């Protein structure tokens, strides 16, 4: 089974990576103006990444399991026979696990990857300003990737999709920084 052959898996991947990146952007922009040490930014991001990963894994597993069980029961009704131990049941179980993994790992990686520059800044390899800028750039690059990924599925122009995703990221930045200035 291809990783993204299932539309549900693809949807989970895009939506949850987006969630992860936006969480990271919220943390990055939220600490933009204050004098927050890089280690704190990274740890806050790591904490949030783990939380959304567990939330994704658990939530998707339970929801997907219920959906697939209902699907299995419907199939059994149509065939007038149980599907226990069949390849059909095996595939349904595989899909539940795969979707839960995608739902958990996508936001985890989506939020953790852009925060890596802060780890480098904490070790003194790069400065805090460079860490902030490169974090934002990384997050925006992931958003562009998501836009291109979706455009490839829908057969639309990648640039337009990427710009729409990018707007979400920039809007987050604008709102969070405006709030920081206000309070």
């Amino acid at each position, binding site marked *: 089974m291809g990783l993204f052959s299932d539309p549900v898996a693809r949807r989970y991947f895009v939506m949850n990576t987006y969630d992860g990146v936006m969480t990271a952007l919220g943390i990055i922009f939220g600490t933009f103006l204050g004098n927050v040490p890089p280690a704190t930014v990274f740890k806050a991001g790591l904490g949030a990444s783990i939380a959304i990963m567990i939330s994704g894994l658990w939530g998707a597993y339970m929801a997907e399991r219920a959906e697939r069980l209902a699907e299995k029961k419907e199939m059994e009704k*149509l065939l007038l026979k149980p599907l226990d131990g069949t390849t059909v049941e095996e595939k349904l179980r595989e899909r539940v696990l795969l979707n839960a993994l995608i739902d958990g790992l996508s936001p985890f990686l989506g939020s953790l990857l852009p925060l890596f520059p802060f780890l480098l800044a904490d070790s003194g390899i790069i400065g805090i300003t460079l860490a902030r800028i490169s974090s934002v750039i990384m997050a925006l690059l992931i958003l562009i990737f998501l836009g291109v990924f979706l455009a490839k599925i829908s057969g639309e122009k990648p640039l337009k999709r990427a710009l729409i995703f990018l707007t979400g990221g920039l809007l987050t930045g604008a709102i969070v920084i405006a709030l920081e200035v206000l309070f």
Partner: protein
Amino acid sequence: MARILRLVLDVVKLLEPSIIEIAEKLAELPGVDGVNIGVIEIDKKVENVRITIEGQDIPVEKVFSLLDKFGAAVHSIDEVIAGKRLVEHAITLEEEV
């Protein structure tokens, strides 16, 4: 025991696995020379297919357990030919008319 040379089954199956996958797996069974699967009726989630298997010694139990593994339900055994050679259905005078 006499060898089974042809088996025709009326089967209801889910759209997945496809008839291609099922035909390939049935054809790989020992004693099977060839398989034909034709769709009789197709629904939203299930399809009714006719499976014709020919071979020198068709392992009937293995055929049924394979179909069971794929979640396919055998509705009826529509034709069986057993023995040393293929004996086709003889058309009677009544049938001709």
